[in-house]
């Protein structure tokens, strides 16, 4: 009885507030495939929108593709399978010529107006371009890409992870 009481009191006293913890493991870490020795170049990363967040989608292409090809595939939108998984795009389903002029700063020109695009849509373009350039193994830029359209040239920007 006495022991129980002591235990109860100890529990009451010790159980208040936010207590420190030791180091606790919580789930696997994210993986970065090194293009130089993991053949990451064979994987194409496209950024679609999932639950309002820009999310990478991996597509196997068998061979390395260039930035313009990757952007063209991005503008084509998610596949049926991806769409049924919840992926969507904020970009217009327009195709046209995409020209890349290596920098710095790297400038990518599109044939459709950019003014009407949401920031998420811009981010889709920027992140996909960055991923494609990283996959090519090219030294990546100073962290910024300039997008240009027939109507406007946007300021240089980096891939945003919301």
């Amino acid at each position, binding site marked *: 009885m006495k022991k129980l009481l002591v235990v109860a009191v100890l*529990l*009451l006293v010790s*159980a*208040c*507030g*936010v*207590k*420190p*913890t*030791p*180091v*606790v*493991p*919580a*789930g*696997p*870490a*994210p*993986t*970065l*495939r*090194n*293009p*130089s*020795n*993991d053949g990451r170049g064979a994987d194409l*990363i496209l*950024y679609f929108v999932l639950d309002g*967040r*820009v*999310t*990478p989608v991996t597509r196997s292409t068998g061979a390395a593709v260039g930035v313009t090809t990757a952007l063209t595939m991005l503008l084509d939108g998610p596949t049926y399978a991806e769409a049924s998984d919840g992926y969507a795009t904020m970009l217009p389903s327009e195709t046209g010529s995409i020209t890349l002029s290596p920098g710095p700063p790297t400038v990518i020109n599109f044939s459709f107006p950019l003014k009407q695009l949401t920031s998420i849509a811009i981010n889709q373009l920027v*992140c996909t371009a*960055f*991923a494609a*350039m*990283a*996959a090519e*193994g090219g*030294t*990546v830029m*100073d*962290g910024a890409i300039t997008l240009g359209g027939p109507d406007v040239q946007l300021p240089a920007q*980096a*891939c*945003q*992870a*919301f």
Partner: protein
Amino acid sequence: MTSRIRSWLAGLRPRLVAAFAVIMIVGATAAAGASYVSARTAILKGFQDQTMLKLRDQIVTYLPTVSLPPTQATLDAFGTALKSSNAVVVYHGLRSGSGIDPDSVPADLRQAVASSTNIQFQRVDAQGYPQFFVGVPVQTGTEGQTSGIEVYTMVSLDQQQAAIDDLSRTAWQTSALALPFAVVLALLAARQVLRPVRALNKAASELGQGKLDVRLRVKGSDELAQLVTTFNNTAAELERTVGTLRTMEADARRFVADVSHELRTPLAAMNAVTDVLDEDAEQLPPDTAVAARLVSAETRRLTRLVQDLIEISRFDAGRAELRREDLDVAAAVTDSLAARGWAPGTDVVAELPAGITARLDRRRLDIVVANLVGNALRHGAPPVEVALRVERGDVVLAVTDHGPGIPEAVLPLVFDRFTKADTARARSEGSGLGLSIARENARLHGGDIVAVNTGTGARFELRLPREAW
């Protein structure tokens, strides 16, 4: 006052109150504590999981744009991308420009992150402010190697702490709120139990004082009701038994009284005959004379016994009358002694100061004095001292003899009827009722007689109030 408080504290009510309060507090505390603990876990887990998930998603989103080995520019861009998490990106000696200071991260956590491919977290108490650190290693390849890129972030748990403190305060207040309820409930329960107990106690003490017709009303069918029923049955049985005994005793006394009365008439005739026989004894043949004297003596003894029985029957029937008159007690006692031929001398030593007056029944005082002095002369040894004094408004008459005293075993029974001090002496001169009658007379006056051994004999002290009450 303190003793009253102590007796109240020793009662059933405070014990019930205390027990109820303890049970209620333990229960409320356990419930509040359990909900507190689970709510705290939920708050912390929810917040921590959200923080870790957000950081991990951000890293996953950004990672494809990173190539190894990263340059300072890459780290800075990475750090900028993770700005909303206030995270710092570390790669061996390099760190991103934004985010928390990597040196503030606990060494344990840094070591764990550097050597594993799992996300790690740790809660740290920084001078009373809880902080939540997350370390995310970036693994590379398929075999789970560490890439060397580590992301750390720290979130303050102040708001969560405040919410949890609020929670615990609510829990305590809830527990405290339970206390008055517990006390009220306990008092109600105690009332429920104590009321019948108090009634029972009162009834039992009334029963003890001789009110045999006391009964309690039975309410309900619980243990207390059973107790009340048992009490009622006991009281009823007691009343019945006592009633039977009283009837029997009254019958017996009436029988004795009747017999005594019936014996009086033949005894009167016998006394007349024996008087004649006594007078003529000298002219009878010697054998016949002895028989005649024996019959005469026994007849006198029987007459006295019957008189005593009649006297005591009157007391038993409550028909004894007291006729008080103003007396000079010394003169009355002297008269009593003289009337029986006990003149002050060698056998009886009287010390009777004159001038002590009292309102007493002369005849009854005479009976008492005769019985006490006669008893002393019969059972004790001379000289018998008769001393009169006044003590606190009472008249006290002490009769002291110089005999063997009264045996200790008989002392408490000496005034009972037919008590004999010496069982070996089957027949004595007295009727065996003398002391009983003496005490009944004393009590009729509102006084009493007590018997003590002085060491050199027995002493009987008659104590009578000088005035009627």
